C-alpha cells in the first residue's frame, strides 16, 4: 500500500494499562488529521472508543496522544505527515501518565506537579492598587514572553526521558511555567518558587536532553527555561537564600 492508499490501517490502544492494540480500517481522505481518524473510528466503527478533544484547532491542548511512538497534537497532525509507506498508523495515550481508558491519559500528575512547582501567580498588589506597567523591552519580560505560550498539552511531559526515569521530576511544562513567573515583575512568589524548583525532583533533575524542545508543538524551549531556573537557584544559593 502506498502513502496515498485509499485506506489506513490504524492500530489503536484499547483498554487500560494492560490493554492491547486493536486495528481499524479507516477511509483515507485528502485533508485528514489524526484526530479526524480517531473521530471517524468512534462514529463509524467503535462507539465505545474513549479519547479527549475540545477545540480541534491547536488551542486547548487536550487531544495530545502518542502517534507512531511520538507525542503529538492529533488535531494539528496531518495524516500525510505521520503515515508510513504501508498506510499504517499506531495510536496510544500519552506516555509518562497513567492511562484511564483507550486513548485518554490521566493528566492529574501533570497538573499536580505544575502546582508543586509553584506554577500559580502570587500577586504582589491588591485590586485597589494601580495597574502595573510592564515594559515589553526588559530582559525579564522578554524571557517570560518567550516561554509563556504553553497551553499545558503534556506533549513535553510525555516526551521527557527524565520524567520517565524519575517519577519525582516535575517535568518541562511545570518548570517552564515557574520560569515565566520568576520573570514576572508583578509576582511575589519568587523565594518559595525557587525553593520548590530546587527541591528533589526540581530543575536540577533535568539532563538537558531537549526532547521537550524537539516535541513541543509550538516550538517552545523548556530546556532553556529550566537552565534559567538552574542559574537563578545557583545565584540564590550563593546569596545564602537556598540551602
Amino acid at each position, binding site marked *: 500500500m502506498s502513502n496515498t492508499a485509499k485506506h489506513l490501517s490504524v492500530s489503536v490502544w484499547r483498554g487500560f494499562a494492560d490493554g492491547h492494540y486493536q486495528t481499524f480500517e479507516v477511509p483515507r481522505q485528502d485533508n485528514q488529521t489524526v484526530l479526524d481518524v480517531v473521530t471517524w473510528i468512534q462514529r463509524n466503527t467503535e462507539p465505545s472508543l474513549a479519547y479527549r478533544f475540545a477545540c480541534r484547532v491547536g488551542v486547548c491542548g487536550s487531544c495530545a496522544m502518542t502517534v507512531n511512538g511520538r507525542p503529538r497534537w492529533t488535531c494539528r497532525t496531518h495524516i500525510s505527515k505521520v503515515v508510513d509507506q504501508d498506510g499504517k498508523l499506531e495510536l496510544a495515550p500519552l506516555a509518562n501518565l497513567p492511562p484511564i481508558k483507550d486513548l485518554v491519559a490521566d493528566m492529574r500528575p501533570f497538573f499536580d506537579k505544575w502546582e508543586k512547582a509553584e506554577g500559580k501567580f502570587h500577586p504582589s498588589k491588591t485590586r485597589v492598587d494601580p495597574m502595573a506597567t510592564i515594559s515589553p523591552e526588559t530582559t525579564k519580560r522578554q524571557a517570560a514572553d518567550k516561554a509563556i505560550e504553553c497551553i499545558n498539552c503534556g506533549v513535553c511531559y510525555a516526551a521527557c526521558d*527524565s520524567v520517565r*526515569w*524519575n517519577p519525582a521530576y516535575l517535568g518541562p511544562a511545570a518548570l517552564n511555567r515557574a520560569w515565566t513567573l520568576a520573570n514576572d515583575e508583578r509576582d511575589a512568589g519568587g523565594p518559595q518558587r525557587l525553593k520548590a524548583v530546587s527541591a528533589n525532583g526540581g530543575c536540577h533533575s533535568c539532563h538537558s536532553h531537549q526532547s521537550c524542545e524537539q516535541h513541543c508543538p509550538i516550538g517552545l524551549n523548556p530546556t532553556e527555561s529550566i537552565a534559567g531556573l538552574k542559574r537563578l537557584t545557583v545565584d540564590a*544559593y550563593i546569596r545564602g537564600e537556598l*540551602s
Partner: protein
Amino acid sequence: MRLYILQRGTAALMVPLIAIHLALIVYATGNGLTASEILARTRGSIAWGLFYQVFVIAAAVHGAIGLRSVARDWLRIGPRPQTGLMWGFGLLLLAFGTRAVIAVVFPGSLS
C-alpha cells in the same frame, strides 16, 4: 542543591585541569618521553603532586555525584542506597587516584 553546586563547581574546576592534562599528554607523546623520563620530571614535585591531587578530588566528587543521579534514574533505587553508592564510588576514586598521585610524585614509596 548542595550536591548540584558541588558537581557543577568541580566540573568548572576540572575544565582547566583537563586542558593542562591533555596538553601534557600531547607534549609527552610528541616528544617521545618514556615512563621513566616522565617520572624523573614528576618525582618530588610538590606542584605536580598538588595539581593531580586536586584533579583526583574534583573527579571523585564530580563522578560520584553523577553516578548517584544515574543510579536514581536507571536503577530506581531509594535515597539511602543512592547516597551509599555515591560515597562508596567517590571514596574508591579518591583512594585509587591518591595512590596514583603518590606513585607519580614519590615513585617506589608504595612498593
